[in-house]
């Protein structure tokens, strides 16, 4: 079995080396048959990666502990689903998942773009193959998941806090996002290599970037949800380097998805977009490095794991090579079109881009600051929540405002009079919201108040856009409002899908502001019969209860809850005890949450400690509006899907414009 896995990895390595080297030579010399051979080798590498992955899945499912990797990441009593999910629970498996996804994506991209002009395809293949080659080499030479050992009686098992449904899917989504960034990068680099500097690569890979961005976004939200339910600190995002690892490429992808509209429409920002796609790719590699190597957290405690150094080398090389390529192509890449007015749609896109990139670089700076300060000052200095929260407000609030302004402003140049007319309703709505909120006492947090007011403005602007568009369409076609709205969205999927995503961001902003700026926290030690009050709620500790589950024991504190004097059911926070060893069992804190969907509010209770005398230490959070974050997640998916959905009209239009690449657009 293990031999088959190792052999498959070797085949993948060989095929990718061929695809990279021979493919590069073929592209350079223009030999058509070699180009096709390199393409086929890339597809073969996908097949080999599939075989290697299948071997690992079988070993994990059958708990074959003669595989070091299986013994390290699973155990006999681990439910099957979690045992298989250990595929991406450890380093070697994660690298294999990268290879599998990348070769799979490459195969799909090549298949979807089979009518692409051969001189472009010729360069796309070796670029993708070179990235995949790096991962294949790591798997073959440094981090093989197919190392054998004398099988122990049982495996080490999966950390209890990772035995959670969210953790089955969260890492996969992040990897789909990280790896997805490679495809637009490869197309952009291929275009530069082939001296094609128009928008073909943007058009061919817009949906790839959108999908990668969607996966990364949803992956992060699921991670946040997991942290919220599993870590038990009442928060959902802690600015940990591992979390930032996914946020940074997502921010750059967000900037990119906006700025390519300027390129498509006005032919501007060509260099900028190439730089963004390079940055997004490098950050996705950096993100993988951060999550896998322990480069940052343990910077002075450990020697960097062996793959860390290779990742840094790969990052450095690809960055230098891509930037050198951009520099070499600058003369043909530069555009003559200039910004006509600082008050125009394209200008707001530019501001949005600058803010997003600045925010991303700020986070990057915070993440690598321990390394830099250690090199410069001789002592690692870490920055934490206050640093990030400061910049979240500094960059996030203007971004929120721009989200309202952008859609209402005309391309090229907007007159003040037309601006006044368009803005009057959203502006009035925002002002009214602000006044009502101050009257309601929301002024206790100025940042929260600004966020809410801006959110009202953005929502007003989005609604106005929908209303105006629907009216215009109804007047034109004479159909009903609902039919006009539907046809409006389906005829302009990118635009209205984008607005739906904007409203998701507003929900997110309102949820984050509400749950952080206006939350209530109470802590107490309770004996049975004691009560604790928090905001509108009163909790009474009834008793402790123990229950046996498949591979653990559940200790729960039974609490009866009242809201405004009315009985509101029971909550059962507690701990799961996993008896992995007699002396030192493993614990996982299980929070109890009572969600009021109507108010979007959570009553969130943690049993921090269950004491020998039968008392329990509780922390109770009342988090207003926190559920808007998760609802926003669904709206985000909906909007992204609208923008992603294939559009036959758009394809025909683009096919006319980029004559040789009609199928490319379905990518």
């Amino acid at each position, binding site marked *: 079995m293990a031999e088959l896995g190792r052999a498959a990895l070797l085949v993948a390595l060989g095929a990718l080396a061929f695809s990279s080297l021979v493919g590069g030579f073929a592209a350079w010399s223009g030999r058509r048959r070699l180009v096709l051979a390199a393409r086929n080798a890339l597809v073969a590498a996908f097949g080999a990666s599939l075989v290697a992955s299948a071997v690992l899945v079988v070993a994990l499912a059958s708990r074959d502990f003669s595989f070091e990797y299986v013994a390290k990441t699973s155990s006999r009593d681990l439910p099957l689903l979690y045992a298989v999910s250990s595929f991406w629970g450890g380093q070697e498996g994660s690298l294999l998942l990268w290879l599998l996804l990348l070769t799979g994506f490459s195969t799909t991209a090549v298949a979807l773009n089979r009518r692409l002009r051969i001189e472009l395809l010729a360069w796309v293949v070796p670029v993708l193959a070179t990235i995949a080659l790096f991962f294949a080499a790591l798997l073959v030479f440094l981090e093989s998941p197919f190392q054998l050992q004398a099988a122990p009686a049982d495996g080490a098992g*999966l950390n209890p806090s*990772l035995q959670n449904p969210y953790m089955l899917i969260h890492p996969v989504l992040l990897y789909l996002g990280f790896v997805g960034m490679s495809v637009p990068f490869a197309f952009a680099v291929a275009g530069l290599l082939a001296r094609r500097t128009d928008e073909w690569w943007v058009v061919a890979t817009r949906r790839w970037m959108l999908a990668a961005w969607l996966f990364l976004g949803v992956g992060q939200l699921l991670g946040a949800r997991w942290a919220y339910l599993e870590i038990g600190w009442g928060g959902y995002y802690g600015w940990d380097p591992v979390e930032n690892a996914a946020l940074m490429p997502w921010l750059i992808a967000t900037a990119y998805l906006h700025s390519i509209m300027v390129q498509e429409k006005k032919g501007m920002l060509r260099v900028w977009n190439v730089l963004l796609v390079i940055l997004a790719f490098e950050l996705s590699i950096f993100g993988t490095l951060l999550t896998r190597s322990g480069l940052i957290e*343990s*910077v002075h405690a*450990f020697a960097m794991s062996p793959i860390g150094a290779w990742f840094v080398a790969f990052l450095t090389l690809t960055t230098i090579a891509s930037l050198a390529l951009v520099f070499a192509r600058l003369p043909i890449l530069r555009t003559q079109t200039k910004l006509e007015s600082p008050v125009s749609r394209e200008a707001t896109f530019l501001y949005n881009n600058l803010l997003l990139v600045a925010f991303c670089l700020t986070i990057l700076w915070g993440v690598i600051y321990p390394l830099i300060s250690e090199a410069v000052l001789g002592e690692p200095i870490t920055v*934490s929540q206050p640093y990030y929260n400061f910049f979240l407000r500094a960059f996030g609030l203007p971004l929120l405002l721009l989200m309202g302004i952008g859609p209402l402003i005309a391309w090229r140049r907007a007159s003040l009079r037309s601006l006044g007319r368009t803005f009057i309703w959203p502006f009035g709505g925002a002002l009214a919201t602000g006044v009502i909120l101050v009257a309601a006492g929301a002024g206790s947090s100025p940042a929260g108040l600004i966020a809410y007011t801006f959110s009202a403005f953005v929502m007003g602007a989005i609604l106005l856009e929908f209303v105006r568009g629907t009216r215009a369409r109804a007047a034109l076609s004479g159909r009903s409002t609902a039919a006009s709205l539907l046809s409006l969205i389906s005829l302009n999927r990118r635009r209205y899908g984008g607005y739906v995503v904007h409203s998701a961001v507003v929900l997110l902003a309102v949820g984050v502001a509400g749950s952080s700026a206006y939350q209530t926290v109470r802590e107490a030690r309770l004996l049975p019969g004691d009560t604790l009050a928090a905001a509108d709620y009163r909790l009474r500790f009834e008793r402790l209860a123990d229950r046996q589950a498949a591979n653990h024991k559940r200790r729960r504190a039974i609490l009866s809850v009242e809201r405004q004097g009315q009985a509101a059911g029971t909550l059962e926070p507690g701990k799961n005890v996993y008896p992995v060893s007699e002396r030192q069992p493993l614990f996982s804190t299980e929070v109890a949450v009572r969600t009021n969907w109507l108010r979007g509010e959570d009553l969130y209770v943690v049993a921090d400690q269950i*004491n020998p005398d039968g008392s329990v230490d509780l922390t109770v959070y009342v988090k207003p509006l926190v559920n808007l974050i998760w609802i926003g997640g669904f709206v985000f998916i909906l909007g992204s899907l609208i923008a992603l959905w294939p559009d036959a009209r758009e394809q025909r239009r683009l096919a006319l414009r980029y004559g040789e690449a009609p199928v490319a657009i379905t990518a």
Partner: protein
Amino acid sequence: MLAVFLLYTSIAGGTPQLRPSQLEGRTAEVTIVGKVLGPVSGDARRAGLRFRLQDVEGDAKSAIRVVYKGSVPDMFRAGRDISLKGRLQGAVFVGAPGTLVTKCPSKYSAKKS
């Protein structure tokens, strides 16, 4: 310009990260990273959890005494690597509530030597 701004913020807002053995004479707020040395005693919600912390790659000689009040992560136990923000007061490092962090659970695989 941005870099200068960021540098300023980082210095103003950052905390030095030290090993227990580097702590001597430092009274400003720092983050220490080390390995928990048992026995762990006391009550995190009352007088405080008491334990010793040694350099991750050191021995008990490098250990300092620590007291910590606040929520304790599930993964916390003797032998585990943790980071904790706080201040040295006399011979005892007093942790700030809610800053005790154990190594991220996603990296449970054994360290390669």
